């Protein structure tokens, strides 16, 4: 009787081998070590993607001749976002957070670029929309009144502002 019990016990096999458990265990400990860094990098990637979306949104609408309420009218033209680059700022404005200025490279016709009223209005919309999208990505709601407070979005690890360059 006793023997039979043991043999039954032996027939019960584990679903995974010990090698598998060791590998998974090692993987888990590696993930745990890398996790904070990955989280930080992920935040920067998400912010960059959001900034790019927001900038394209602003550029498309201004290019079609649309304007927000209380914004100066600008003639339509081909306005494009060439690229968005994160620029690390070597000074601390918000304690405990890395400050990144997201530089948006905007291409626009000369009659917009060379007219300071038009140029300021267009780049204002584009930078504000870029920051709005970052704000939405991390807060889950749009900034009150459509304008990002202080033109700065703070996340867990970073503090983002927006810059621009005409190309």
């Amino acid at each position, binding site marked *: 009787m006793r023997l039979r019990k043991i043999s039954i016990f032996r027939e019960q096999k584990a679903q*995974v081998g010990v090698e598998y458990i060791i590998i998974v265990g090692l993987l888990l400990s590696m993930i745990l070590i890398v996790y904070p860094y990955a989280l930080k990098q992920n935040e920067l990637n998400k912010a960059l993607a959001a900034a790019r979306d927001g900038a394209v949104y602003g550029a498309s*609408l201004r290019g079609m001749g*649309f304007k927000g309420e209380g914004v100066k009218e600008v003639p339509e033209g081909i306005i494009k976002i060439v690229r968005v680059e994160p620029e690390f700022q070597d000074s601390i404005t918000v304690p405990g957070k890395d400050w990144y200025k997201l530089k948006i490279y905007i291409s626009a016709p000369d009659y917009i670029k060379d007219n300071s009223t038009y140029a300021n209005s267009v780049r204002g919309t584009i930078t504000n929309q870029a920051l709005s999208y970052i704000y939405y990505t991390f807060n889950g709601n749009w900034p009150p009144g459509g304008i990002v407070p202080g033109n700065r979005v703070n996340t867990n690890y970073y503090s983002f502002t927006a810059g621009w360059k005409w190309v």
Partner: protein
Amino acid sequence: MVGALVNMRGQISIEAILAVGFSIVILISLFNLTWERFYLARDIGEAGEAKMVGEVLAGAINNAYANGDGFRIYLGPDVLNYTRLGDASRITGVGISLPIVIDKAGRTINISKSMQKTGGGNWMAAIPIIPANISRANPTAQYAETTIRNSGGGITIYAAQENINIP
């Protein structure tokens, strides 16, 4: 009973459970960004459509003005469908904010598009037109909505006030 226990196997392997689990985590992290892009693409598309409607109307007004007394253009529901333009429930988009306002003094057609889903309030676009003497009349049996007629002294648009408004 013990035999039954030995025969009990999981319906899927632990590898499958792990793979599905990881996929779910990755998909969830992308979800927020994906909806954002959907709204962005739809709002820019709708803004483009709104602009097109303004251009069609401006083209018709300018043509009626240029062609002299008695000339008229009929923009039927195939060209200018107010129900579909302002439709908010069917596609959950917000379409164009009706009425389309014609500014006589500024000689522009003002299109307004609500951007609730992407954080903005109303975005406006102004499309220039040539004539300044424009009036609106309710549609009649002879002139259905939307007819644009050159009445010698000026342009008359036959359309309901909730669709086209000339203050």
